[in-house]
């Protein structure tokens, strides 16, 4: 299956016949089998699928935390390792992964003190196509925007789970990444917190317009957030469908009541179910 969207210029993400195998011999599992995906800059793409479909593996490949066994992964035309060295990738893991000894503000500003040579590298990669490394945003302002103005000088342990995850998102946006990679960031949160964090994520994304690769288990979450929902299936892990979500933005709470939203939900659910059935067959 080819999950490509029409692209002009260098795509933000390009996966070409990517294979990833864990283990050796008869016990080897095909985590990803011939995965192709192209994402133009500025798009919000969700990966959805049952456990074992390789969506987290795909995410780790893009974030440069693993290498493909075959095929090629390119982020803005360069390998993930090069993109990481230029601080073009922001990662929001499942847990907030904040440093417990630093205040929220110092947690989100620490990336600016790390790998200072990245700005130069980033300009070089940008070439003629983009305007180069964007200026570092005002982190205090971003925190206020994310509803963490009061909590700025508190330690992570003094915050709720939702606030911690918001801080982790602000930390990643603070890099002004070209690609933001999010691994089920809201899966540990309750329903209310989840929705309010989706709101804030969309607000921040609207402003900083980066490409987002978002792994999730939740169908409504995928439909609400994404421009494109990529449906994956296990055994071997592969992309079975790519659904463009053509709903107007901004997508506020009202969206949940709309018929078109539920139609997209049903469509994604149907494709997921089909993926299951094809596996059982």
């Amino acid at each position: 299956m080819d999950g490509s969207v029409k692209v002009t210029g260098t795509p933000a993400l390009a996966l070409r016949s990517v294979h990833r195998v864990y283990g050796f011999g008869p016990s080897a599992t095909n985590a990803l089998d011939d995965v192709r995906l192209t994402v133009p800059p500025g798009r919000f793409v969700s990966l959805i699928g049952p456990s074992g479909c390789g969506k987290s593996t795909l995410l780790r490949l893009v974030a440069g935390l693993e290498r493909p066994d075959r095929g090629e992964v390119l982020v803005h035309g360069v390998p993930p390792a090069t993109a990481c060295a230029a601080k073009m990738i922001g990662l929001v893991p499942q847990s907030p992964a904040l440093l417990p000894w630093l205040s929220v503000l110092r947690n989100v500003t620490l990336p600016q003190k790390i790998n200072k040579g990245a700005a130069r590298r980033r300009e070089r990669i940008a070439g003629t196509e983009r305007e180069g490394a964007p200026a570092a945003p005002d982190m205090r302002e971003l925190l206020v925007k994310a509803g963490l103005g009061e909590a700025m000088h508190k330690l992570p342990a003094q915050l709720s789970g939702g606030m911690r995850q918001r801080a982790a998102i602000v930390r990643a946006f603070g890099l002004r990444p070209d690609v933001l990679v999010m691994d089920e960031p809201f899966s540990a949160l309750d329903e209310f917190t989840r929705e309010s964090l989706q709101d804030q994520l969309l607000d921040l994304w609207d402003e900083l317009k980066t490409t987002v690769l978002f792994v999730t288990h939740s169908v409504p979450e995928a439909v609400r957030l994404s421009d494109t929902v990529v449906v994956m299936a296990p055994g071997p892990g592969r992309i079975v469908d790519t659904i463009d979500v053509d709903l107007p933005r901004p997508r506020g709470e009202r969206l949940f009541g709309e018929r078109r939203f539920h139609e997209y939900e049903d469509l994604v659910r149907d494709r997921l179910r089909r993926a299951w059935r094809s596996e059982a067959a």
Partner: protein
Amino acid sequence: MTVADERTTAPAPQADPPVEPSRFSLSHPRSRIAWIRPAVWLPLLVTLAVLAALWQWGAEKLPYLLPPLQDIGSSLAGQFGYYVDNALVTLGEAVAGLATGFAAAFVLAVLTSELPLVRRAVMPIAVVLNVTPLVAIAPALVVAFGFGPLPKLVIAGLICFFPILINTAAGLRSVPRQVLQVYRTMDAGRLELLRHVRVPNALPYVFAALRIVFPLSIVGAVVAEMSASGSTDGLGTVIGVASSMNQLPVVYASILVLAVMGVLLLLAVTLVERRVLHWHDSAHN
């Protein structure tokens, strides 16, 4: 419609209540005020009184084994300056040894956690060193380094070395995987990672080691002093000489001073720990 109504009356989802808000405001003052209540100090006082009575009874029955408390007290009061001087000598040796051992162990912990080659080369030796009774090495070290302060420093340092090495190495390596992944995607350098992530992460482990090692450093200094008995100052020497001359009150007075010294050192570590690790759970118990 009912769904929407419920949503407006329910607590706003944005206002996430902080987790356990009372923990940070209450635990500190409470632990300090607690000592005013008799229920806290009375049991200890009673135990001490019973022990003192038993001691006095024993001293009466076995005068060659136990000196009466008032003799110990008068020895302490009569020669207070003498005890303080010798205590300071022992303390100096212990702290100097601890500082040296700490520096060496910390550097080695960083090297072993960063370089697997160093870990494989050094760790087995460190383990062997740890299981070797240092009390047995002390006389040999005195022969090697003479009767000066050096062998005391070496033994105090050696005795502190292993717990600090093991704990610090564990702390440096125990950074959660997802934290490492976040900084790996920024291509953080090894030194940056050490400075901003690994070393601060190791601090609770380091302090746990310091709590073990501070009393041990005194043990090391005293053992070394006893091995070179009579040649220098220090409470170990005082105990060695006094016991050979059957001056039991002096022996027990020195032991008492050593115990007080240990308590003061532990208190100092605790105070520094509360400062440095205010963010960590251990500082709130």
